C-alpha cells in the first residue's frame, strides 16, 4: 500500500492549487451571489485539459487516472464547490459513460467534442417521480426507422443550461422495468430538445442546474449508448464513478472551510486572547482534521481501485457517504467558529455550508449510499 502520490499527481495538485488560487477563488463569491455560470473559468479549464482529463489521448484527453481527476475536483472545490461540481459532472457523468460504453465512432465524435471541442457535458437520469428510485422514470424512447423519438422531462440536471452533450436515460421497453431502460447521447441541437426551468438552489449557485425537456426529440440510432436495455446498468456504473468526484468535492469543501476557520480564529481576539487558544476551539479543529484525513484516504482509495480495474462500488459509496456528511458538519462548525461574521456574506463560510448540503443528496443520497454499502455486507 503506497500512500504517496506519483510525481505527475503531485504536479496535477500543484497546478490545480495554483489555478484555483488565481482564477477561481477571486470570483467565487461573485459567482455565488449572481448565480453566473463561470464560463471564462470553464473555457480555461478546457484549455488546460482539466475538462475531460480522463478521456484517452486518442480521443482528445490526457488519459489521466481517476486519482488525478479527483485531485483536480478537490482543489477547485476548496475555493468554489460550484465550479468543482461542473467539472466533476462533465468528467465523471458525461465523459465517463461514453469512455466506458461508447462505440469507436461515438468515442471519436463525442469525446473529442467534450475535450478539444470545448463542449460541456451533462447526465440526465432524474425525473420528478424518479429520484432515488431511478427505475421509475417515464421518459420514453421509441425506435422509428433510423432514429429514436424521445419524450419526457428530466429535472435537477447539473450543467443543464450550459451543456451541449447529454447522456440521457429513457425507456425503450416499459414492460421490462429496469431492463427496459436505454442510454443515449443527445446533443442540444437535436430537434425537440429544450431546456426548461433554471433551478434556483440553496447553494452551488454557479452550477447551472436545469430541467431538460424532450418533445418528440429526434435522436439518431447511432447515438444509442451501449445496448438497448443496458441503460440502467450504465447509469449505476456511471454513478459509482461519479461518486468519487462528489467525494472529492465534499472533501475540498471541508478543507476549504476548515482553512478559513483556522485563519480566522488565529486572528480573532476575545477575552484577552486569540480564540484559537481556547481548548474547545482546538479540539474542534482536531476533530475536523481527523474527518478530513479519513475522508481523503477513503476518496483516494476508491479512485485508485477504479483506475486499477478493481471493484470499487462499495469504496466509492463509503467515501461519498463519509465525506459529504463530514463536509456538512465541518462547514457548519466553521460558520460557528466565525461567530456572527460567519453568518454574513462578507466571509465565504456561509456559502460553503450552503454548498455542502447537496453533497449529502445528489449522485445518490446518503440513504442510498447506506443501501449500497449494506448490500455489500449482507
Amino acid at each position: 500500500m503506497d500512500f504517496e502520490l506519483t510525481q505527475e499527481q503531485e504536479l496535477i495538485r500543484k497546478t490545480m492549487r495554483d489555478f484555483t488560487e488565481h482564477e477561481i477563488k477571486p470570483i467565487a463569491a461573485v459567482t455565488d451571489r449572481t448565480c453566473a455560470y463561470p464560463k471564462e473559468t470553464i473555457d480555461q479549464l478546457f484549455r488546460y485539459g482539466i475538462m475531460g482529463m480522463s478521456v484517452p489521448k486518442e480521443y482528445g484527453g490526457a488519459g489521466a487516472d481517476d486519482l488525478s481527476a479527483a485531485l483536480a475536483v478537490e482543489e477547485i472545490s476548496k475555493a468554489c464547490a460550484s465550479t468543482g461540481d461542473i467539472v466533476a459532472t462533465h468528467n465523471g457523468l458525461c465523459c465517463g459513460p461514453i469512455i466506458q460504453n461508447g462505440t469507436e465512432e461515438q468515442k471519436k465524435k463525442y469525446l473529442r467534442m467534450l475535450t478539444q471541442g470545448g463542449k460541456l457535458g451533462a447526465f440526465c437520469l432524474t425525473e420528478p417521480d424518479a429520484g432515488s428510485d431511478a427505475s421509475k422514470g417515464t421518459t420514453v424512447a421509441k425506435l422509428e426507422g433510423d432514429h429514436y423519438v424521445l419524450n419526457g422531462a428530466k429535472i435537477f440536471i447539473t450543467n443543464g443550461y450550459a451543456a451541449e452533450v447529454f447522456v440521457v436515460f429513457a425507456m425503450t421497453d416499459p414492460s421490462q422495468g429496469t431492463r427496459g431502460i436505454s442510454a443515449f447521447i443527445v446533443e442540444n441541437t437535436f430537434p425537440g430538445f429544450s431546456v426548461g426551468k433554471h433551478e434556483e438552489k440553496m447553494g452551488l449557485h454557479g452550477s447551472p442546474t436545469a430541467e431538460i425537456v424532450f418533445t418528440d426529440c429526434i435522436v439518431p440510432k447511432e447515438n444509442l449508448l451501449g445496448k438497448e436495455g443496458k441503460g440502467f446498468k450504465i447509469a449505476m456504473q456511471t454513478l459509482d464513478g461519479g461518486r468519487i468526484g462528489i467525494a472529492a468535492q465534499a472533501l475540498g469543501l471541508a478543507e476549504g472551510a476548515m482553512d478559513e476557520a483556522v485563519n480566522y480564529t488565529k486572528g480573532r481576539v476575545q477575552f484577552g486572547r486569540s480564540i484559537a487558544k481556547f481548548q474547545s476551539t482546538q479540539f474542534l479543529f482536531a476533530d475536523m482534521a481527523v474527518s478530513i484525513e479519513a475522508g481523503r484516504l477513503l476518496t483516494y482509495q476508491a479512485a485508485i481501485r477504479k483506475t486499477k480495474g478493481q471493484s470499487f462500488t462499495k469504496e466509492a459509496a463509503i467515501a461519498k457517504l463519509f465525506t459529504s456528511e463530514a463536509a456538512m458538519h465541518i462547514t457548519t462548525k466553521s460558520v460557528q467558529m466565525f461567530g456572527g461574521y460567519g453568518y454574513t456574506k462578507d466571509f465565504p463560510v456561509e456559502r460553503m455550508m450552503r454548498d455542502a448540503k447537496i453533497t449529502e443528496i445528489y449522485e445518490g443520497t446518503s440513504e442510498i449510499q447506506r443501501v449500497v454499502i449494506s448490500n455489500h455486507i449482507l
Partner: protein
Amino acid sequence: MSFNNTDIAAFKDVWVFCEQRQGKLMPTDFELISEGRKLADELGVALCGLLLGDKVEGLAKELGGYGADKVYVCESPMLKNYTTGGYTTAICQVIEELKPEVMLFGASNIGRDLGPRCAARLHTGLCADCTHLDVDMPIYKDFLREASTLTPEKIEGLNTAMVLGEKHDVSRDLKMTRPAFGGHLMASIICPRFRPAMATVRPGVMKKNAFDQAKADACQIVKPAFTITEDDVQTEVLEIVKAAKKLVDLIGADFIVSVGRGISKDVAGGIKLAEELAAELGGVVGGSRATIDSGWLSADHQVGQTGKTVHPKVYIALGISGAIQHKAGMQDSECIIAVNKNDTAPIFEIADYGICGDLFKVAPMLTEAVRAAKASK
C-alpha cells in the same frame, strides 16, 4: 580582457556615469555626483563624471556644481541614443585607459542594463541597486549600528574579511549595501580583488548637495580618446516614446490612500484631499466598504474582505475605523498609517504610525510635509 585589473594600486579616482536622455541629465546624476563626492573625499581622490552622447558637452559643467572635479565627455553620433553595445564599448575603453577605482551608475532601467555588461567585459565586481555606500569604517559601523540587528561584536569584527582564505583589510574598499530577498535582507558587498569596484545606485536615495556655481565654473572638461564602430553598436533604436502614466490598479499600487466613514461631513472634500495626498505619493485612492455602499466611490476602489486585498508599500487610512472586514484587505501592507479622530479606533492596533486627529486638517498637512521632505532630498 587586456588589462590587469588586479593591480589595485594602479587604480585611482571615483567615477560616476552620468546618464543623459535626449540631451537632458537625469536627476539621479546629481544624487550620484553628491554621493561620489563624499566617497572621493573619504578616499582622498578626485571625483569625475562620465558623460556619453552626441553634442552633450554643454551639460557637463552642471555636474561640477554638485561636486565633480572633472567630467570626461565621450561624444559621437553613434552615442546619441543609448545602446548597450555602443555605451559599453566606449565606457570600457575609457576605463581601461584611465583606471578609476570606483565606477557608479544610477540603477535606472538603462543603468541596470549597462552596468552588468561593463562589469562582465572588464572582469570586475558589480553590486546592483545599492541604497548605501561607504568607505570610511567608523561611519559604516555607525550605519550598521542603526540600521541592523547585528551585535556590537560582529560590527567591530568587520575591519577585515576572509577572502579566499586570507584576511583582507576592507578599510579602503567600497562597502556597497543593498536589499535582497525582496527587501527582507540587506547585504554589504565588497569587491576586494578587482578594480574598478562597480555599483548601480537606487535612484532617489542618495542626498543631493546644494548647487555651487563656483565649483561648476571650476569643473574641468576632458575628452578622452575612444573608437566606436557600427559593429560595436549591435542594436538599432527605432523610436523613443514617452508614455503618459497609466492608471494604477489598487492591486499593483505602491501607495494607497483610503477613505472611510470619516469623510461623511464633506464627501467631495475628503476624496479630494485623499487624491492630493495619493498624487503626491504617486499612488491611488481606495475606500472602505462604507464609502462604496454610500455611493461615494465606485466599487473598484473597495479595499476589504469583499473588495480587493492589497499589499502596498504604504497604506494610509483616513477616517477608517478598521473593522475586521477592512483589515482583512490591507493588513499585510508594508507600512500602515492611520488618521482617525478616535484614538481607540481598531485601525491603530495594526498601524505602524498613527495620528489622532481630524483628517480634514491632517491630510493636507501630510501632503505638504511629504512634498517638503521629497524636495529636500
